[in-house]
């Protein structure tokens, strides 16, 4: 399947702006994971008086649109205040690049989230924000699951309404996903991603994922491996492998 990129995407892919990392950055953050095939790291320098992002650089592990969106994110945020950047919408990056294929829209989300995470780190370091103790409730889990992408559409499983319900019982969390019209061949992939995302939360020891097909039958693939004990202690943003 040939993927068509705009001239602007190609330009930022072949000549990315602000590549690398700042020496002695004021803050940095990584978003994504190697297992998912895309990951981006931002380093920033922020003026403590004006809150202006005076410099920003990125590193990327990912496809052409991952590189291009991260490059565009640095271009758009340099010289802006952190308050302005915190209001960035991923769509703006996609628009500035003349559009992205639907399946690649999540790259712009990754870039914006990465920048925002770096800003958050800066705010914490400057006493402007507190390290959020992520509490295990339905809302935070749903928020986290927004990062799980339906491979067929490139959209989040949350925005597609694929998360039926979330149940929390101490350190155990139970998630039911419906596949709707998504090809069942992606069920296993979605299950893995949900598990990986949730296992990154400190408060969760065990993740149970049930996946239903459109007729509400449990899919065969998830029967034997539905329960996975948390084995390693990955911390940060999805930096644990699979």
């Amino acid at each position, binding site marked *: *399947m040939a*993927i068509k990129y705009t001239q602007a995407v190609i330009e930022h*892919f*072949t000549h*990315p702006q602000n*590549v*690398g*990392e700042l*020496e002695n950055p004021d803050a940095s953050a*990584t978003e*994504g*994971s*190697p*297992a*998912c*095939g*895309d*990951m*981006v*790291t931002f380093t920033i320098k922020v003026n403590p008086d004006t809150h202006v992002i005076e410099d920003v650089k*990125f*590193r*990327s*592990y*990912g*496809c*052409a649109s*991952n*590189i291009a969106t991260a490059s565009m994110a640095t271009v758009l945020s340099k010289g802006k205040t952190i308050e302005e950047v915190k209001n960035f919408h991923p769509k703006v990056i996609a628009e500035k690049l003349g559009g992205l294929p639907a*399946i690649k829209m999540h790259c712009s989300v990754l870039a914006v989230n990465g920048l925002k995470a770096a800003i958050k780190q800066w705010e914490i370091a400057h006493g402007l924000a507190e390290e959020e103790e992520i509490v295990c409730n339905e809302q935070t889990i749903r928020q986290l699951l927004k990062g799980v*992408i339906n*491979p*067929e559409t*490139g959209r989040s499983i949350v925005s597609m309404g694929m998360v039926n319900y979330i149940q929390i019982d101490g350190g155990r969390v139970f998630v039911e996903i419906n596949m709707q019209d998504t090809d*069942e*061949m*992606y069920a296993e*992939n979605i299950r893995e991603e949900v598990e990986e995302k949730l296992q990154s939360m400190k408060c969760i020891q065990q993740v149970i994922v049930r996946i239903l097909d459109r007729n509400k039958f449990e899919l*065969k693939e998830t029967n034997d491996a539905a329960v996975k004990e948390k084995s390693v202690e990955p911390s940060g943003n999805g*930096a644990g*492998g*699979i």
Partner: protein
Amino acid sequence: MPERLIYFDNNDTTPMLEPVLQAMLPYYTEHYGNPASLHQLGLEAEEAVSQARTTIAGFLGAKPEELIFTGSATEANNLAILGAAYAAPDHKRHLITSKIEHSAVLNPMKRLEKEGFRVTYLDVDGQGFVSPDNLKKAMTPETLLVSIVHGNHEIGTVQDLKDLGAVCRERGVLFHTDAAQSFSKVPLNVVEDLVDLASINAHKMHGPKGVGALYVRSGVRIRKILEGAPQENNMRPGTENVPAIVGFAEAARIAFANLAADARHMATIRDRLIDQLLEIPHSHLNGPRDHRRLPSNADITFKYIEGEAILMHLSMRGVCVSSGSACSSKSLTPSNVLTAIGLKHEDAHGSIRFSFSKLNTAEEVDIAAQKVREVVELLRSMTAFVPGIHSETEGAGEGFYKKKKDEF
């Protein structure tokens, strides 16, 4: 733009040869008859199809009447798998395949599962081989068909069909093989290899797209999957694609005239590229490295970077390849073949397939290898992947990244 294109994606498709096109052209204009017609134009067309059938069947070691022309190898796989399942007696409800099959085999299997059949997906070893012992163990009295790919489309593994076929023959189970990649590259004789059904096509050997064939051993019962007029021995309705069938036979004739020498040439080129690319640090070959690999295929993982980005950079430098990365497919999942041979997702994402035809040269290999080195270095210089942090790996953190880090 690059001055000259280097095409290393011949496992996807190949350029058609001029003599093949010339053989086809009269069947669009002059001899345009329908083989079903009774007048002289129809007879001409029928004669052309019949000659092509004899030619291609001969190269498989089959009889002409055992060959059914289809629109593609995909269609041939569907006809073999669905056709065998639907023709089987009621108590035969189980099929066996492997985890490294092409979607043209896996998806008909998935359909059958939804229709109430059971399917076993056999594991393969680290080089992609199916073990005859595992196959034997998976057999049940209900098993009706085994389908195992001959030459794998992604990692080039060539199965020993005879060993697998013997297990099937002994149990009275049908044995199908998808030979789309291997036909005309490595020897295949349906009689000696104990194959009951085999799918082949034309466009992987410099023939036209849109034509394939299914070998069905005489005496084997399958049910047709399309309804219409009784063409192709009443197994595949629809007017025969006469020019493409003629082109198929011409391409096969040319390929088999020089089979051994062409295979040697491709293997030489393949090994030249593999040798050069494995000199790049943190790279490894996927699939076997001996005579059990398709001469046309090399598949290499470049760690810590992502395949689509490699592919795009190579494309801009005039080198056409493909990738097992999730990002280079329409969906976001990595290749089932690479994960089946035990690759971690992040390694599957960084894999590139180089595939050759007899038209490629050693000079092209040297140019391409240099461009690959450039691209890998460029992408690694900017990767966010930190070995040792994002994966437990050799030389954790001591590799290229730290070095590059100091340069910034």
